[in-house]
C-alpha cells in the first residue's frame, strides 16, 4: 500500500484528509458513526471571541451540484469552546485538531487565537479571513493584501503554533493576498472558502436565503479550487491546504497535484456523513490506479 502521510507545517498527518470547518461541528455527530481518529485531522466550527447566533433562517439553498449557506458563524464563543467543546472532543479524538478562528477586528482575531494557542489539543490555527456571511469582518480582511497581512502579523505575534490563513476566492488577485500573508509570517495558506452566491425562489420572487446572499460550495466549485490552489501554491513557499468541492479520492489527488499539501472536505460531509471515511478508504485504490507510491511526492506535481 502506498504512503498516505503528509507533513503539514511540521506536524505529521496519517493522511491528508481534513473535514473543513463548518461542516463537521466539533466532531461528535460524526464520532457517533465512525472513529474520527482515522482522519488526518479536522478543522472545527469557526470560533469567534463572543458567542454568535448567526443569521436568520432560511440559511440554506440548494444549487446544481452544490449548495449555498449563510449560517453566519454561529458558535458558542471561544471561552465555551475551550471549557465545553474541547473537553467533549477529547473523548472521541486523540489527535491535534485545527482551530478555525474568525473575527471582526484585528484585536478579535489576536484575542481568540491567543486563547486557543494555549490549548494542547490544538495543532494549528486556521485563521478565516474569508467568511462571506458576516458584515464588517470576515471576508473584508481577506479581500485586501494589507488587511490580510495585518491580521496575520497580529496573530503570529501572540501565538506559537502554525498559523494557516484561510483565503476567499471572491477576489481579483488571490496570489497577491497569499503572498502578503506569507510575508507577514503565515505558516500556511488554506483555500478556497465559499464563492459568494445567490438563489431566487420563483414562487415568492424573493431570495431563498434570508440574508439574500451566501457562500456557494459543493462539487460545482471544484475547478475553481484547483485553479486557485495551483496559482497560490506556485507563488508561495509555505504549504497550501486545498479545498473546495472535494468529494472523492480522485479529487484529493487532483488538488495535491495542483499544489495542496493537505485537502479539506466540506459540503460533501453534509450530504454523506461518511464522505471523509470513504475517501480515506478509497485513496489506496486510486493511488494504485494512478501509480502513486507516496502522496507527499505528488504535491505540486503539475508545474
Amino acid at each position, binding site marked *: 500500500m502506498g504512503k498516505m502521510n503528509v507533513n503539514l507545517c511540521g506536524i505529521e498527518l496519517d493522511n491528508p484528509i481534513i473535514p473543513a470547518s463548518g461542516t463537521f*461541528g466539533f466532531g461528535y*455527530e460524526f464520532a457517533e458513526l465512525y472513529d474520527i481518529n482515522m482522519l488526518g485531522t479536522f478543522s472545527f466550527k469557526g470560533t469567534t471571541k463572543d458567542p454568535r447566533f448567526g443569521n436568520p433562517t432560511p440559511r440554506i439553498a440548494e444549487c446544481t451540484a452544490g449548495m449555498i449557506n449563510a449560517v453566519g458563524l454561529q458558535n458558542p464563543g471561544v471561552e465555551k469552546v475551550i471549557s465545553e467543546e474541547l473537553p467533549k472532543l477529547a473523548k472521541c479524538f486523540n489527535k491535534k485538531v485545527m482551530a478555525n478562528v474568525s473575527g471582526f477586528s484585528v484585536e478579535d482575531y489576536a484575542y481568540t487565537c491567543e486563547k486557543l494557542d494555549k490549548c494542547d489539543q490544538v495543532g494549528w490555527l486556521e485563521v478565516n479571513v474569508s467568511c462571506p456571511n458576516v458584515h464588517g469582518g470576515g471576508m473584508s480582511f481577506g479581500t485586501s493584501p494589507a488587511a490580510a497581512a495585518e491580521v496575520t502579523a497580529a496573530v503570529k505575534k501572540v501565538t506559537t503554533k502554525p498559523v494557516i490563513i484561510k483565503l476567499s476566492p471572491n477576489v481579483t488577485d488571490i496570489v497577491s493576498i497569499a503572498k502578503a500573508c506569507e510575508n507577514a509570517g503565515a505558516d500556511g495558506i488554506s483555500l478556497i472558502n465559499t464563492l459568494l452566491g445567490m438563489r431566487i425562489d420563483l414562487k415568492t420572487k424573493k431570495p431563498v436565503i434570508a440574508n439574500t446572499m451566501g457562500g456557494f460550495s459543493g462539487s460545482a466549485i471544484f475547478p475553481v479550487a484547483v485553479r486557485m490552489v495551483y496559482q497560490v501554491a506556485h507563488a508561495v513557499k509555505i504549504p497550501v491546504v486545498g479545498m473546495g468541492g472535494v468529494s472523492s479520492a480522485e479529487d484529493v489527488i487532483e488538488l495535491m497535484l495542483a499544489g495542496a499539501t493537505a485537502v479539506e472536505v466540506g459540503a460533501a460531509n453534509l450530504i454523506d456523513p461518511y464522505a471523509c471515511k470513504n475517501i480515506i478508504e478509497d485513496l489506496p485504490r486510486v493511488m494504485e490506479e494512478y501509480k502513486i507510491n507516496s502522496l507527499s511526492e505528488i504535491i505540486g506535481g503539475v508545474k
Partner: protein
Amino acid sequence: MKQGIYKIIQNVPLTDNVMLMKLAGDTEGVACGQFINIKLDGLYLRRPISVCDCEDGVITIIYKVVGKGTKQMQDMKEGDLDVLTGLGNGYNTSVSGDNPLLLGGGVGVPPLYMLAKKLIAEGKKVSVVLGFNTKSEVFYEDEFRALGATVTVTTADGSYGTKGFVTDAMGDIDYSYFYTCGPEPMLKAIYNVSKTSGQLSFEERMGCGFGACMGCSCKTLYGNKRICKDGPVLVKEEIIWEK
C-alpha cells in the same frame, strides 16, 4: 443516526398530490416524531421527510409533492434509496397524561400516526384533530380511527367534517397534554389557545439534517437549538416566536 439502503416496496397516491411510500430496511432505533433524510439522484441535498410509521423492517412516509425532489420521488416505481434514519429528537410520550390531544395540519398529520399508536399502546385515551383545506385533501382519517383514537376532521372551507381550523375543534375536547405538527401559523395558533403544556414539531430548511451545518438553528428560551438535531420537537415552554 444510521445510514442504510432501503428498498421501495410501495409508492401510492393518497390524494392528488400526497403520496405514501413504504421503505424496507433497518428500522432499529427509529422513534415517533423523528424524520429520515433521503438522497435522490442528481439532487445535491437530501430530502428530510417525517416518519409516519415504522414496524417489522418497514418505514412508512407520507409526503406532499411540492418541488423537484418530491416530484422525482413520486415517479419512482421501485429501486433502492440511500437514507439516513433516526434523525431528530422525536416526541416524548412519558409526559402526556391520561388523555392527550394530537393536532395535525396537512402533511403535519403523518408523524402523529406513529405517536398515536405509541400513546394508545401505553393505555392512553387519544383524541386526534386532523386539519385540511378541503375534502379532497383529507387522508388517514380511517387509519387513526382503526388505532382506537377519537378522530375529528376539520376543513377550512367546510366541505368535510367541522368547518374551520384545528383550533376550532379544540374547545370541545378535554385533554391532559397536546402534541402537534403542521404549518407554523397553525402551531402558533395552538400555542396561543392551548390550556396545557405540549410538544410542537417544527420545520426548517436543512443542510445536513444531523446537526453538523447549523443551517436550521432557532433561538429558544433554553438556548440555541438545531431543528434537525435538538428538534424538530420543541416543548411549549421553550418556544420563542420570531417570524
